[in-house]
């Protein structure tokens, strides 16, 4: 049976997504920290976006850089790992909007009877920053805005 994904705007500045994954936290953590594995799932196949490159230096203070392409338009997302605690916790900054505008993503992995509860917590620098992310649809280290707009335009063409 498929587990449910939950998303909630917890406060003016916080967005929380969660899901139970059928597997031990060690393997789930590995899938988030090994770039070859990460590439396999971060961009769902149905999205009109490709993850062109993915560099991840997964250790506290290490950097990451993701380059996406959507219909010829490329977008870069980068930042720093602020905390790496194997199998239980990953914290990184999203620095592409500038240091003052950085939002912080905290992912926790909690193993229960061979399954893992994954909680992705995004903290934005201000209410305006999250409102703007919502307005443009850009959030979660992926140019979702592009996806959303491509979708809107595709729908319009079909009218």
């Amino acid at each position, binding site marked *: 049976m498929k587990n449910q994904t939950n998303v909630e705007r917890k406060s003016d500045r916080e967005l929380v997504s969660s899901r139970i994954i059928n597997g031990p936290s060690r393997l789930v953590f590995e899938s988030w920290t090994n770039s070859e594995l990460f590439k396999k799932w971060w961009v769902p196949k149905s999205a009109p976006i490709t993850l062109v490159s993915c560099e991840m230096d997964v250790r506290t203070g290490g950097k990451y850089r993701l380059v996406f392409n959507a219909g010829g338009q490329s977008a870069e997302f980068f930042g720093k790992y602020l905390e790496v605690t194997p199998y239980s916790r990953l914290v990184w900054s999203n620095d592409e909007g500038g240091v003052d505008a950085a939002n912080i993503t905290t992912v926790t992995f909690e193993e229960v009877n061979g399954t893992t509860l994954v909680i992705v917590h995004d903290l934005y620098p201000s209410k305006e920053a999250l409102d703007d992310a919502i307005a*443009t649809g850009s959030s*979660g280290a992926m*140019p979702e805005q592009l996806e959303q707009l491509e979708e809107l335009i595709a729908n319009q063409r079909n009218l």
Partner: protein
Amino acid sequence: MVLYSRNRLDDTFAALSDATRRGVLLQLGRGNASITELADKFHMSRTGINKHVGILEQTGLVKTEKIGRVRTCMLGSCRLDSEAVWIERYKETWDRRFDALEMVVQELKQKKKDK
């Protein structure tokens, strides 16, 4: 280019039908930028980028403020969707992403078993 403004939605779709303009919106979603910065970012002339920003500005997707000689561009108040709709879309994205993660984890589990 002449824009026939039948209604605001037509203008919005017209504005969004261009890859550069979508790129400008994405960029401004990450922070305000001057015309010069946008021109550099998109490898265009200031005149070229000005035209794109002008089209976005007409729809309310973008607004600009001129301070001295610098024109700063930022996201406008026209919202594509309500927050609830956006959250639903965001959830779909994470749902598909988690589905794919689940498959990767299952593959890893299988590999460990085979060893």
